[in-house]
C-alpha cells in the first residue's frame, strides 16, 4: 500500500475556534496510519473574502501554500471544505493558465519560492476512503455505531462546484454515508443533507439569511430523529453548533442537535474516549452521545 503521508494544511478554524477538530484529526489519523506533516508556515486561504478584494494577491498567497506542500513532495491535506475549494481553485487556475502561473511565480520568486503544480489538494474525508480504505476502516471498528442515527451534513464546498471538486456527484454524494456504514452506524437521509450552513454570509446577513439556514438545517436532522449530525467542515460545525442557540432564539424553538466533526465520529467507533476527542467542547451538549457510547461497550 502506498505510504499515507500528507502535508497537513490545518486552516484557521481548527487552529482558532475548533481545537477539538485539530486534536481529533491527529489522534484518528495516527490510528489509521496516516502521517501528517503540518505546514506551519501556511497562511489563511482567504475563504473567498480576500478573493473579492484582491484576486491576484489571494492567488499568490495560495500558490505559496501549495508550494509549501511541494517543498515536502507531498499532497496537501485539508480538514476544511472552504480551504479545499480555495486551494483547488488556485491550483486549477494556475495549472490551466500559463501566463497567470508565470506572473504568480514572478511574485513568489521574491520569497525564493516557486509553484510547480506537483501536489494535489485532497481532504481528510476522501483520504479515509481512498487512502486508508473502507475495508480497513471497518476492520478497525471496536465500538460499532449501531445505536446511532446519523445525519450527514456535507457542506457546500466538498461537493460543489464540480469543475473544482469533482470527487463525487454533487446531486447525490455518498462518501459520508459510506463511512457511517463502515463504522456500523445508520445514515439518515434528511432535507438539509446537501444544504448550506449559512456561514459565509454571517457578517452581512446574519438575521436575513444565515441563522435561518442554521435553524432549517438542524431542524431537518431533528425531524428525522437523528442522534447527531456529522460534518467534514469546521465552518459548518461552528455555524451549526456554536450558533445553533442563536438560531433557536430567532425562530423561537428548541432544537438541541449535537454536531460532530468527521474525525470525532470515526474516533468514537475506533474506541477512543469522547473526552480526548473533545466532545465536551461543543456548545450543543453531546452528553447523550457520550452516555450511549459508554453504555455500548
Amino acid at each position, binding site marked *: 500500500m502506498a505510504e499515507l503521508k500528507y502535508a497537513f494544511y490545518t486552516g*484557521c*478554524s481548527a*487552529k*482558532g*475556534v475548533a*481545537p477539538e477538530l485539530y486534536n481529533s484529526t491527529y489522534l484518528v489519523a495516527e490510528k489509521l496510519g496516516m502521517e501528517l506533516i503540518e505546514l*506551519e*508556515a501556511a*497562511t*489563511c486561504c*482567504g475563504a*473567498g*473574502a*480576500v478573493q*473579492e*478584494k*484582491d*484576486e*491576484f*494577491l489571494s*492567488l499568490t*498567497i495560495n500558490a*505559496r501554500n501549495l508550494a509549501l506542500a511541494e517543498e515536502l513532495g507531498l499532497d496537501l491535506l485539508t480538514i476544511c471544505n472552504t480551504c479545499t475549494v480555495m486551494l483547488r481553485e488556485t491550483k*486549477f487556475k494556475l495549472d*490551466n493558465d500559463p501566463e*497567470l502561473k508565470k*506572473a504568480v511565480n514572478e*511574485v*513568489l520568486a*521574491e*520569497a*525564493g519560492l516557486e509553484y510547480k503544480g506537483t501536489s494535489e489538494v485532497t481532504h481528510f474525508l476522501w483520504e479515509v476512503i481512498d487512502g486508508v480504505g473502507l475495508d480497513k476502516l471497518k476492520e478497525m471498528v471496536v465500538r460499532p455505531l449501531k445505536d446511532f442515527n446519523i445525519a450527514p451534513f456535507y457542506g*457546500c464546498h466538498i461537493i460543489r*462546484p*464540480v*469543475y473544482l471538486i*469533482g*470527487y*463525487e*456527484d454533487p*446531486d*447525490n454524494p455518498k462518501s459520508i454515508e459510506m463511512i457511517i456504514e463502515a463504522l456500523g452506524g445508520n445514515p439518515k437521509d434528511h432535507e438539509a443533507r446537501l*444544504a*448550506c450552513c*449559512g*456561514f*459565509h*454570509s454571517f*457578517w*452581512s*446577513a446574519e438575521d*436575513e*439569511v*444565515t441563522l*435561518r*439556514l442554521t435553524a432549517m438545517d438542524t431542524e431537518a436532522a431533528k425531524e428525522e430523529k437523528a442522534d447527531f449530525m456529522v460534518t467534514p467542515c469546521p465552518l459548518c460545525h461552528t455555524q451549526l453548533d*456554536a450558533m445553533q442557540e*442563536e438560531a433557536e432564539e430567532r425562530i423561537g424553538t428548541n432544537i438541541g442537535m449535537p454536531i460532530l466533526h468527521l474525525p470525532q465520529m470515526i474516533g468514537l467507533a475506533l474506541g477512543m474516549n469522547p473526552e480526548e476527542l473533545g466532545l465536551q*467542547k461543543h*456548545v450543543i451538549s453531546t452528553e447523550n452521545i457520550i452516555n450511549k457510547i459508554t453504555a455500548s461497550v
Partner: protein
Amino acid sequence: MEHFYLKVFRYDPTKDEQPYYKTYKLPVEKGMTVLAALFKVKETQDPSISFRYNCRAAICGSCSMKINGHGTLACKEQVTKLLEKYNTDTIVVEPIGNVKPLKDLIFDFDWLLEKFKQVKPWFIPKEPPPADGTEYRQDPYDHHKIDFASDCILCASCVSECNALKANKDYLSPFVLAKAYRFAADSRDGARRERLEAVLDHFNLEWCVRCWQCTTNCPKEVQPYESIIRLRIIAAEEGYKTPGERHAEIFEKDIKERGLLNEMLLPIRQEGVLGAVKRAPFGIKMFFKGKVNIADFFGGHKVKRHEEVEKIYEKAKEKEKEVKIRIPQILGVVYEDKRKTRKRANFLDKGGNE
C-alpha cells in the same frame, strides 16, 4: 429494469386543498427524457397533468422542474441516466423549489420576472454607435469577462435550491444577479453604477452564501455564483463600502500581519465596539468551552516564515494591475464514473462574436 415509476407533484388550487403526489408506472425506453415520460403519461394514463414545454431541445427554458430534488430541464434529463445516478426505480418530479406552485409542475414565474426587471436587464449604451455604421466593438478580454454570463435562458433551474432564497424570499435570485453582472461588467454599458446601486440597495449581493448550488444546477453553464462574486469585485472597485468589503479587508490585513485569521477579534473589527458588545456572550461561551486561546484576544501568533508573506504581499500589490485573470468557462460534463463526475472547464471562450 423494464419499468420505472414517475412520481408527480399534483396540485390544482381550484379543487385541491393540499398538493399530493401521484405515481405512474412506465416502461423504460432508451433515450427517453423526463419530458417525454410526462407526455407518455399525459397521452396514455392521465390527460390532466399540466406542465410547460416548448422547444424540447434545452433552448427555450420552459420545461424546468425539480427532478429528484434538483432544478433542471426535463427535456435534457434522460430517464435511464437518472435511474442509474440515484440508484432507484422512481423519478420524482416537482415544480421548481423556492417559487410558488401554480398548477401541477407549473410555477409562478411572474414573481421572478418582477425581480428581474429591477436590474434593468437590457443594454444601456455608454456612447452612440460608431459613426461609420459598424457595430459596438469590444476588446476580447472584456468580452471574455461577460461571455459565460450571457447564455441564460431564464429557466429558473438555479432558483430551485438557492440557499439564500430559501432563507429569504427578498433575495433577488441567482439568474437576476447574473444578468446584473452581465451588463454591469460590459465595457460598452453606460449604467454600471445604477445597476450596482439596484443590487446594493437590497444588500442582495451580500446575502449569497457562496454555496455554488446555482452554478451546479444551471443547464447552460451560466455560473451565477461567479457573476455574483464578480459583481462584488466591481462594487469594491467602484468604491462602494459593504460589510463584505470590510470583511475582506480584515482577512487581508490578518494574512499580511500574521498569516492566519483571528476569528476572536473579528467582531470588534467588523462591527466596532457595539458589535463586540453584542458578540461578547459568544466569545465568553467559546472561551469557557475551551475552544479558544486567550492569546487570540490579544492578536495571536504569526505563522512561521512570515517574512515571505510580507514580500509576496508587496510584490503582488505592485504587479496586480498588469495581470489579466481569466475566468474559467464550464464546458459540460466530460467524464463520469462511479464516484467522479467532473465538469470540464477551461479558459477558452466558447466562441461568440469576437
